[in-house]
């Protein structure tokens, strides 16, 4: 899936600058330390991704952070959809809804904005 997309053109960086602080990133460009997260981190990543965040985005971002705290796992898409369906019902817990919010991949982008590690790839 990812191979068909153009490579990220952003310069590779090891730190994310947020309010004068430099936060360490991992090799995927995700936040290295989950505890470093704040809403400003999400906003900084969103800017990188060219994404204007609304309440629906924040709902997902907060949800994946809770998911991570509960399961010690960064949610891949299938688990994310199923978990959101259980909590919010089928209107929100479906992949079309989530793809509209995060066109470059809901699990991939939402976890990044939420300061989690990149979800492990499916086989």
């Amino acid at each position: 899936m990812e191979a068909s997309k153009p490579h990220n053109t952003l310069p590779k960086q090891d730190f994310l600058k947020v309010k004068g602080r430099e936060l360490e990133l991992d090799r995927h460009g995700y936040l290295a330390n989950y505890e470093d997260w704040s809403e400003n981190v999400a906003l900084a990543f969103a800017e990188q991704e060219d994404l204007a965040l609304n309440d629906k985005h924040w709902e997902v971002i907060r949800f994946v952070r809770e998911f991570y705290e509960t399961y010690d796992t960064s949610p891949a898409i299938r688990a994310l959809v199923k978990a959101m369906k259980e909590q919010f019902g089928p209107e929100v817990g479906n992949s079309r809804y989530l793809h509209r919010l995060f066109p470059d991949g809901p699990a991939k982008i939402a976890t990044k904005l939420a300061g989690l590690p990149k979800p492990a790839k499916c086989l």
Partner: protein
Amino acid sequence: MSAYLLIISTHAPYHSSFAMDAYEAALGATNVGLEVRFLFQGNGVFQLLSAQTPAGIQHKNMAKKLKALPLFDIEDIYVCSKSVALRFEAISGQNHAQNYTNEFFEKISISDELEAQIVNEQELNILMANASHILRF
């Protein structure tokens, strides 16, 4: 009965990668559309204890990870009652451990959010006999 892959997890978490390997094999198998059932046997039952604090050794919490199994469509989860009973006996020093299986679960408060069926030896045999494949970790 539909064909299913039975994954048997027999190691305690953290001291080796067996527990994580079993877990990841299970998720991987569901990703390619296989029906997976998951059995905890031997020291594998220790993975279910909820009081795990592996942050100090920089590991993810296995009990927390296991709670996500149903989100990957793994809902048939089994625990070998004999394995639990033997370990309860060892910990508590009590004999006739079969009777204490339930007590073990309550006392050591196994992750209550993961629904697992406790199976006896006979049920275990049926579970294994009906599996199309078995992977033991």
